[in-house]
């Protein structure tokens, strides 16, 4: 087969359709097809020359983690051998490198940005990593058995979509390679996260809800951005993972007022609270007055003064140096240090640098 140097118009269209088909698979919220998943998992165990495992199904990764901890604590011999690394080396990495070699020798086109990166950034960088963070933060005294050994299935499907598209437009893989790749793809279409050990495997259902904003950032301003059937999940605000203890910012907005906003230590969470409550409403309620302003990199900076419980407070009103995907900039109110009379002085003093020498050749 001649090397494909550039995708045809028809292939470009196929690529878009293929990517969106896999995006749907990655974001699928239907109940897992556990029977189909079990069959593929047993097949993987056989490929590793392992006997069929006991396969246990649970409603979410959190329930899987609880179950793994409970089961392992009851086992007389303790934790069985994990199969994660064996699975990776024998059925994963070897396959990746073989497929990649075939793909690169037959296709001289970059699928990374149009296919792989788009799926990866939405499914793995965002969804999987926020679910990871959430589960990790809730472990308490539990061990991260499931978290550290799990495979992401639908949330890791970008690589399968990538190599399958090559196959779709004529790239030839060895028959054994395409068979194994299709098994991985079927697994991603069937179940949520799963983790294999010698003799036992824990499998999670898929989530029931996943919500993104128009820029494909995890987001819900009314509830969880990703929720499983047992109620476990995450809250996110335009891509920012809001921890459980602060989920009220999204679910109980009536609690938002200048006092609760000022009491928040974390600058990003305070920014989110202000976005929801309204920067201008905050200024109005606090009776804030502008005492100085300037521009840096064409962006306005203001120093505001307000009285809170009889005490004068100065607040620096600034915008982020980097653009958001929608072209806007995040806006922050930061408490100015005592003695600052201009935005420049307030910024310099916030970094502990003498305002006389402070400079910004770059701000991102």
């Amino acid at each position: 087969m001649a090397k494909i140097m550039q995708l045809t118009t028809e292939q470009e269209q196929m690529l878009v359709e293929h990517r969106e088909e896999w995006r749907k698979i990655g974001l699928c919220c239907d109940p897992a097809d556990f029977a189909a998943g079990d069959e593929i998992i047993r097949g993987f165990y056989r490929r590793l020359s392992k006997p069929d495992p006991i396969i246990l199904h649970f409603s979410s990764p959190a329930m899987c983690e609880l179950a793994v901890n409970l089961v392992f604590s009851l086992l007389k011999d303790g934790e069985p051998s994990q199969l994660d690394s064996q699975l990776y080396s024998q059925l994963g990495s070897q396959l990746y490198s073989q497929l990649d070699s075939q793909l690169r020798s037959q296709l001289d086109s970059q699928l990374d940005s149009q296919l792989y990166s788009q799926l990866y950034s939405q499914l793995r960088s965002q969804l999987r990593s926020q679910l990871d963070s959430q589960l990790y933060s809730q472990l308490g005294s539990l061990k991260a058995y499931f978290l550290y050994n799990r495979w992401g299935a639908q949330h890791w499907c970008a690589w399968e979509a990538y190599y399958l598209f090559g196959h779709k437009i004529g790239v030839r893989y060895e028959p054994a390679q395409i068979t194994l790749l299709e098994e991985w793809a079927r697994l991603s279409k069937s179940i949520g996260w799963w983790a294999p050990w010698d003799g036992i495997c824990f499998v999670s259902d898929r989530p029931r809800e996943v919500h993104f904003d128009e820029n494909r950032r995890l987001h819900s301003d009314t509830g969880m951005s990703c929720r499983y059937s047992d109620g476990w999940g995450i809250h996110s605000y335009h891509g920012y993972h809001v921890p459980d203890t602060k989920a009220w910012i999204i679910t109980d907005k009536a609690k938002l007022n200048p006092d609760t906003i000022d009491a928040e230590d974390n600058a990003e969470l305070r920014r989110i609270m202000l976005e929801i409550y309204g920067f201008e409403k905050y200024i109005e309620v606090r009776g804030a007055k502008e005492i100085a302003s300037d521009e840096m990199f064409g962006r306005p900076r203001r120093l505001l003064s307000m009285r809170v419980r009889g005490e004068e407070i100065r607040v620096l009103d600034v915008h982020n140096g980097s653009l958001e995907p929608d072209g806007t900039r995040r806006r922050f109110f930061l408490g100015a240090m005592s003695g600052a009379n201009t935005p420049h002085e307030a910024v310099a003093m916030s970094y502990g640098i003498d305002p006389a020498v402070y400079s910004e050749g770059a701000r991102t």
Partner: protein
Amino acid sequence: MHIVNFDPNHRGAAQGDLYLFKLTDAEAAKRCGVELKKANRGSIRLLEGEVTGHHHEIVQDHEETGGTEEASAIAAAALGIAKARAAAARGTATLYQDDNLAAALPWLRRRDLMIGFLVVTGGPVILRHPEHDAVKLPEGTFYVGRQIESAGAEERVVSD
């Protein structure tokens, strides 16, 4: 990943709550502190995101990965996708602790905000963060510190 160049006409650069200030040659010559972190596989974590888990970190400046999406680069490397991931690294960096040097810098008013002194050698390195544009840092010695804000009678370190 969009990369902004460090402006040689200025000494400072800010990436959100992280600030770097380039030392003069005379100031840098006084450095004799202990090594805190050396680039491990090309990266040094300067400041961790407490809630987000998003870090400010130094990575080596690869010739062909600068314009690609970070997620893709990491995943591609993990999956063995052979792109130009093995492009020659240009610079490297080491983070030092040096309280004596800090005390000798008249412009540094708050030594408690100091993370360390970053020494970049052999070419530029990249300061990156998932939610900020990256900054390309030239060779030299940089003060690295974090940001603080007032909260009424108290102070609090700015964190994300």
